[in-house]
């Protein structure tokens, strides 16, 4: 059997984390993963300065800035892979930050894994941006885009490297702030301002909750008297009492959920993703949401470690709800970027299913199963970054070409955008969880993890978890309906809009980036064993068990988690099988040169076919809307305009459809109403008269004096 690269890499001696626990002794002769990553993150400052000094609108500036960011991202990914494949853990203390509160950084397997995800996707997206940003209109603030883009990417790397609460929160806020300005990119449009405001509010509510959770954990680990508890090491050393641990968990879980877009905290996603430039949406959806996943994994499995099973059940249930509701919302959309944003809600749900299961298995002390479930969740995290990045880049290329986001104005673009269509098709197949691409592998692993539930001692869980598998199957089926609709309406059929002839294919930079992402999707789909080998060090550190002892039994061609008797899947063989059969059939049928005659569409002899008779995005989803419509607030009206001679011949009929989120009415509307009510009451105090305000100050002073 051919030994793949990963096997050779893992066979290297593993360094103990204690020996490499070095302080900031910048020994440049020996480069190590953490130094490489710090240097690469520092390199992101170059394009920022470049853009500020020279100005962003010139084509050369754009090329240089984004190639520097691409290289920096790539080297961060390499650093992450280095740490991951060699099982290295390194720590470093930077002499910046507040006095006596330096920044601690740590590169271990988990952060290495997320560095690989962020690095790979931001490498692709940076290449893409060279073409995309260059093609933007000159009125738009390109300089601001370059500056905040680089800050955003660099901040994401720092978040996963952070090893203390202060550094984590600072990087987290830089990430949120930079992305706020990116969402605000087209600040002339009220849609952008509204989305950015909503995004800022949600980001800050989340950040405050995470801050509070850090407060709880740091306070419990070193007492509330001194500051040393702010490092994650101090928290890691502590066995939290269940009460405090639960408080911390609920706080950070809600905080991270707001970032990840877990239902019901998802409302900002479908607003913010569509208005941001597409390269930024690709990063926000592909990796920024994953940083929140990183947070959940880091604090639950690495820092708190011991917890009751219902935490996992909570995560699992929210994951299932997000998955099903997210995909149904996506199916109802006809704005391409909004559709992709809702589909991120779905995928975050699938990731949380894996993580929640892993938490349940951990709390019942079943480490092998916990590893499988966590690997499933993390694998989907990586896959989603790749295919959602690809799809958002594709959406960018489409919007660039058509100047519209409404799918119902497109159609037939496969002839105008041949490259984009193929690459978008790869993304669509991957995200629908269909073999041989990558989305299938992680969903398959999640199914396997769900089917392990009979080993649980809890009767209720045994029964309910397989029902979760049915919901996951429903999600996967609805996802493929969603992407049949998306691809079909955008690329197939006849053009529904008017500007077909102005549509041109995207430039080489955008195409190359999308090709790389599509190639990654295929590789992760057919070579899962190698990827899981890399991920094994994570589970080995967190649970003390590895998966590859069983997953590699048949060699790298077969993926056999837990036990080859239980289940096996061979991506390469399936792919080769389909290719071989298809090509043999093709060759056999073309031995006798059969003619292909092109003719007008038959359509059962129906005449005068026009593009309005095609199914569009709204009509495609009608049957499913009818079945699952009770989950939404749907307003549907058909108004027939005044007839002329006979009611059977209406002049014009109007169809009106509005689909709204029930959660908005249930949760957000009341909060907004209460805030307005309170502010109206508070405004009674304000009259704009100086003497009244002097009386307020006077009364305040009197009260304070009396109390002291």
């Amino acid at each position: 059997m051919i030994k793949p690269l990963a096997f050779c890499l893992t066979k290297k001696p593993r360094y103990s984390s204690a020996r490499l626990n070095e302080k900031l002794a910048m020994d440049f002769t020996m480069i190590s993963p953490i130094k490489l990553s710090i240097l690469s993150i520092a390199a992101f400052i170059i394009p920022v300065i470049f853009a500020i000094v020279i100005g962003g609108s010139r084509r050369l500036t754009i090329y240089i800035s984004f190639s520097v960011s691409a290289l920096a991202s790539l080297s961060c990914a390499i650093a992450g892979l280095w740490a991951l494949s060699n099982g290295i853990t390194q720590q470093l203390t930077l002499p910046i930050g507040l006095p006596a509160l330096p920044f601690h950084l740590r590169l271990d397997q988990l952060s290495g894994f997320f560095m690989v995800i962020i690095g790979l996707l931001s490498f692709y997206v940076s290449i893409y941006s060279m073409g995309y940003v260059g093609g933007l209109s000159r009125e738009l603030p390109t300089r601001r885009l370059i500056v905040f883009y680089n800050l955003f990417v660099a901040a994401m790397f720092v978040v996963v490297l952070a090893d203390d609460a202060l550094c984590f929160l600072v990087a987290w806020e830089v990430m949120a702030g930079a992305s706020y300005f990116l969402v605000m990119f087209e600040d002339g449009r009220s849609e952008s301002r509204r989305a950015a405001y909503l995004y800022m509010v949600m980001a800050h509510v989340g950040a405050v909750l995470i801050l509070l959770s850090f407060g709880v954990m740091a306070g419990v680990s070193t007492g509330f008297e001194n500051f040393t508890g702010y490092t994650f090491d101090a928290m890691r050393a502590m066995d939290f009492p269940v009460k405090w641990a639960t408080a911390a968990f609920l706080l950070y879980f809600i905080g991270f959920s707001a970032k990840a877009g877990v239902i019901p905290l998802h409302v900002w996603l479908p607003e913010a993703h569509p208005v941001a430039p597409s390269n930024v949406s690709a990063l926000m959806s592909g990796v920024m949401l994953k940083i929140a996943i990183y947070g959940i994994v880091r604090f639950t499995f690495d820092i708190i470690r011991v917890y009751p099973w219902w935490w996992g059940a909570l995560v699992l249930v929210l994951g299932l709800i997000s998955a099903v509701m997210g995909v149904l919302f996506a199916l109802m959309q006809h704005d391409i970027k909004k559709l992709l944003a809702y589909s991120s809600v779905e995928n975050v749900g699938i990731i949380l299913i894996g993580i929640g299961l892993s938490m349940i298995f951990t709390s019942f002390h079943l480490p092998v199963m916990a590893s499988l479930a966590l690997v499933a969740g993390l694998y989907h995290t990586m896959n989603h970054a790749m295919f959602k990045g690809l799809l958002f880049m594709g959406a960018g290329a489409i919007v660039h070409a058509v100047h519209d986001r409404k799918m119902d104005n497109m159609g037939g673009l496969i002839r105008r955008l041949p490259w984009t269509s193929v690459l978008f098709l790869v993304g669509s197949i991957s995200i629908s969880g269909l073999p041989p691409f990558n989305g299938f592998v992680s969903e398959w692993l999640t199914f396997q993890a769900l089917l392990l539930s009979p080993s649980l001692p809890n009767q209720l869980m045994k029964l309910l978890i397989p029902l979760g598998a049915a919901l996951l199957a429903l999600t996967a089926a609805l996802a493929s309906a969603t992407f049949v609709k998306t691809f079909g309406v955008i690329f197939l059929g006849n053009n529904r809009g008017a500007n077909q002839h102005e549509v041109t294919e995207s430039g080489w930079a955008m195409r190359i980036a999308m090709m790389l992402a599509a190639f990654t999707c295929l590789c992760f789909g057919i070579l899962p064993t190698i990827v899981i080998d890399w991920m094994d060090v994570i589970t080995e550190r967190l649970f003390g068990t590895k998966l590859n002892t069983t997953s590699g039994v048949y060699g790298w061609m077969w993926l056999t988690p837990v036990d080859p008797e239980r289940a096996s899947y061979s991506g390469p063989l399936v792919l080769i099988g389909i290719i071989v059969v298809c090509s043999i059939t093709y060759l056999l049928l073309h031995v006798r040169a059969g003619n292909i005659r092109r003719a007008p569409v038959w359509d059962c002899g129906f005449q005068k076919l026009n593009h309005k008779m095609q199914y569009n995005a709204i009509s495609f989803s009608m049957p499913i809307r009818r079945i699952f419509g009770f989950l939404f607030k749907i307003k549907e009206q058909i108004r027939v305009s005044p007839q002329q001679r006979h009611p059977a011949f209406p002049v014009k009929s109007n169809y009106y459809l509005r689909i709204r989120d029930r959660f908005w009415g249930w949760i957000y509307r009341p909060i907004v109403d209460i805030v307005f009510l309170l502010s109206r009451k508070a405004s009674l105090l304000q009259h704009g008269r100086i003497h009244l305000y002097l009386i307020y100050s006077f009364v305040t002073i009197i009260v304070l004096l009396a109390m002291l």
Partner: protein
Amino acid sequence: MRSLHFIFIEVLQVMIVLALAPIFSGWVDMLKCWSQGRTSAGVLQPYRNIAKLFIKDVVLAENASWIFRFTPYFVFGTAVVVGCVIPIISMNLFLAPSADIIVIVALFATARFFMALAGMDIGTAFGGMGASREMMIASLTEPAILMAIFTVSLESKSTSLYHIVQTFYLGGMVLRPSIVFAAIAFILVVIAEAGRVPVDNPATHLELTMVHEAMILEYSGRHLALIQWGSMIRFFLFSALGIACFLPWGIAAADTVGEISVSLFFIVIKFAVIGVVVVLIETGLAKMRLFRLTEFLGAAFLMATLGMICFFILE
């Protein structure tokens, strides 16, 4: 020499799938004619249809893209690949470990994905309608079929088909309530998946009720032949899947000539019986309205869930 032996079994199985699938469809059609008091065209009629279509030229719509031309090959290709994996004549298939039951369902879903795209490719109302309905039906059948399969796999602690077959075959014949419920659910779902009568009508044409036929309306010549052959194989394989999960007796455990010929004998018997059952269902029922399907498939899902509950409570 041992590997040659495995390859021989594999090739034999593919041949059987390719050859028997049209005969099975012909058998069902023939029985249906008889049950309705008509004279039938004979078991081999599907062969004649396919052969005729292969000889004919292709008439392709002017605006058809490569998706439209690629889909027939892909649909046929996935069907054949699945045919290599399901244990039909022997348990020890060389390729069986490369795909478990979830992969099989997903491969069929991939084929359906492309069929639906091909339906939308020409830009007619029929094609879009077929695609939309097909995806709706799929979104309801997929959870139900996986639930039925999961009940079986919980019972055998595996999702690998060859392992499921071995467990049930070698484990002896025990009537388990969970398996019975799962089997009922499976039959209901397969009727929907294969596009048979209460859900879709394979003989329909030019009706607003059609689903599968609406998607392939624009196909002709060899493309149509491949699609029709592919869907016959699909029907055959779903039946074979049911046999593997619920009636595995007779599948060869060892690759000797004797065992294989016994298993061939059993295949003929089982498919003949399945044909009779299908015809009884189809002639006894009328085609359902599209939105009544939720009840039909909901019932299938409920049966599968009941099976699972039985597994946890009784066993």
